[in-house]
């Protein structure tokens, strides 16, 4: 402690604070680079050039206004999907079933569409968004409730719920909500033109992006700047301690998982109202699973989710170009994600190991 006082007292207190904070940035970034490096070796074993790959990712994801718009449109559902993992993670819960809430949120919107066709959009859209959020909240909240009241592992239950949700969607879209005109691909009736969510002013990117970023900022405020978020972090660190302190652990778990599911449901809302125009099997596009990786890469920090989601959306946007130009299968992006995911989890072992991030150990 004496060293710290000397360093701090000399007016250079910025440096230790910076060092402490940079650990959570430097280690994930290094893990990202290592993950890419391993992937580059993998590409070399396949006789492909990693430089070509990077060049195409750049071109397909960020190289032009058009590719930026493609990337940002894909980022919108990923922001919500990542929040669905990051919020429960603050309570120490690993929820991986966001896909189910996205799918059912979308189905709710598609099912409400015909009834809302003649309702003014400024009433109908918020109602439909609320319906999508509620369905998602119930779905992921159920995993939280099972965890709290029955001790059922939330990782397994949420993924099982996602499989059940996809089966439910198929049943509903082919059964009661099916539009008889949708022959090859069973879908709900197309939404009225007035109910389609448009693009952000001056961009070819739909409003889902703005709401996704807003969701991340709100979640950050909730976690970092409110007493609920503080209580959740305590409960996530040590449930016993939180209970001894009289924190309402059950309500926190229910609230955070329901909010997480609500965000995922909102992803389904934007996918239907802004992208597909009706609910069908395209809703199960795997955004929920990419969201898991994004949340872990962002270390469950809602603000960090924004750049990470844009990064990973870029790979998705460039995927078509990579398939055509390099003759690589579409699963190449999954392989890359796998390497990055493993590398980021392995990096957990390096926290607290390096003196450079710990100012109190500098002098020794």
């Amino acid at each position, binding site marked *: 402690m004496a060293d710290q006082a000397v360093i701090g007292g000399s007016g250079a207190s910025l440096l230790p604070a910076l060092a402490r904070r940079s650990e959570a940035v430097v280690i994930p970034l290094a893990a990202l680079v290592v993950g890419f490096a391993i992937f580059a070796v993998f590409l070399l074993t396949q006789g492909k050039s990693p430089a070509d790959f990077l060049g195409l990712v750049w071109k397909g994801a960020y190289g032009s206004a058009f590719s930026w718009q493609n990337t940002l449109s894909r980022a919108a559902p990923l922001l919500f999907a990542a929040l669905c993992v990051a919020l429960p993670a603050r309570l120490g819960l690993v929820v991986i079933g966001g896909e189910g809430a996205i799918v059912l949120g979308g189905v709710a919107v598609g099912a409400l569409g015909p009834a809302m066709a003649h309702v003014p959009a400024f009433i109908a859209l918020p109602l439909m968004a609320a319906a999508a959020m509620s369905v998602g909240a119930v779905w992921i909240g159920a995993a939280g409730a099972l965890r709290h009241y029955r001790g059922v592992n939330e990782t*397994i239950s949420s993924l099982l719920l996602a499989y*059940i949700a996809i*089966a*439910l969607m198929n*049943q509903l879209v082919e059964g009661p909500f099916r539009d008889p005109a949708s022959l090859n691909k069973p879908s709900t009736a197309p939404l009225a033109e007035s109910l389609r969510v448009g693009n952000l002013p001056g961009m070819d990117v739909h409003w889902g992006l703005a709401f996704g970023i807003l969701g991340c900022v709100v979640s950050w405020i909730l976690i970092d700047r409110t007493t609920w978020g503080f209580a959740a972090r305590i409960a996530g660190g040590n449930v016993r301690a939180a209970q001894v302190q009289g924190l309402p652990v059950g309500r926190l778990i229910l609230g955070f998982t329901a909010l997480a599911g609500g965000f995922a449901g909102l992803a389904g809302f934007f996918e239907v109202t802004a992208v597909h125009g009706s609910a069908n099997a395209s809703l199960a596009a795997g955004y929920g699973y990419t969201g898991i990786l994004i949340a872990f890469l962002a270390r469950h920090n809602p603000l960090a989710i924004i750049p990470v989601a844009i990064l990973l959306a870029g790979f998705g946007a460039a995927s078509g170009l990579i398939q055509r130009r390099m003759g690589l299968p579409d*699963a190449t992006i999954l392989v890359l*994600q*796998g390497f990055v995911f*493993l590398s980021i989890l*392995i990096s957990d072992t390096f926290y607290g190991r390096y003196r450079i991030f710990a100012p109190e150990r500098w002098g020794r």
Partner: protein
Amino acid sequence: MEHDIGLWAIPIAILGGAIRVSTPFLFVSLGEVLTERSGRINLGLEGTLVFGAMAGYATAVVTGSAWAGVIVAALSGSLFGLLHGLICSLPKVNDIAIGIAMMLFGTGLAFYFGKPFIQPVAPDLPAIPLGFWSDLPQLRAALEVNVLFLIGIVLALGMAWMFRATRVGLIIRVVGDSTDAARAMGLRPALIRTLATATGGAFAGVGGAYLSLYYPGSWNEGISSGQGLMAVALVIFARWNPIACFGAALLFGGAGALGPALQSVGVTQGYYLFYAAPYVLTLGVLIAISSPNRAMTGAPGELSITK
């Protein structure tokens, strides 16, 4: 129809389906029992299963031998298990999160390398017609039992005996129940857990080979829809007992066969809901056997999922 057996067709179809569908459940859950008894959880067996299905099918296409496919599937599964085990031996690494990453990693690699093998046809694994005594074609079809199913039964019995009566079984149990006790005995918990995870991965790989080489008997990207994950839940249901795993696998297989069985007698309503039956059953079973307050009986003491 020559033999009109009416509604009897449903239980017979479910029996046959249970035998056919349960084998991958059985192998994955036995692998997971071995891993979890050593104190670790491998949620990545879903990815191992899919990769095993691809590797087994591809090998069978190239070599023309289904058994070579099974062996390669087992080897690739043990490599995935080894990777999981080694990563989890590092301090501060979360085995559940690694499992999720391995799930995505294994599936991604399987899709990547499996692309050229979606079209070609591989030889099937042999089946033994145990229904020869009956002249009901439905019963004969139901009792076409694959050799791997029988191997699975032997494996379950062998593992139960190993845990109860052998030195290896005792070592795995000690490591799983208390890291400190294991260290005091001079054992190396990380090494033993890694070996147990690698062996468990090999079992899951064989389960995958069964999927692609016997039932449904082809390789495609939708070959497994959560069987690997359900098998992990099944292990909790079976209380980490290999013989109970066999019963649980049959039950889950029967639930999976419910939809096709009803379809075979002309019930087409709610097809997708019956398709979801195994997931609902898994969830229901988890809810029924879990408890928020007490540790589960039979659970290894070091297991993160039940702590």
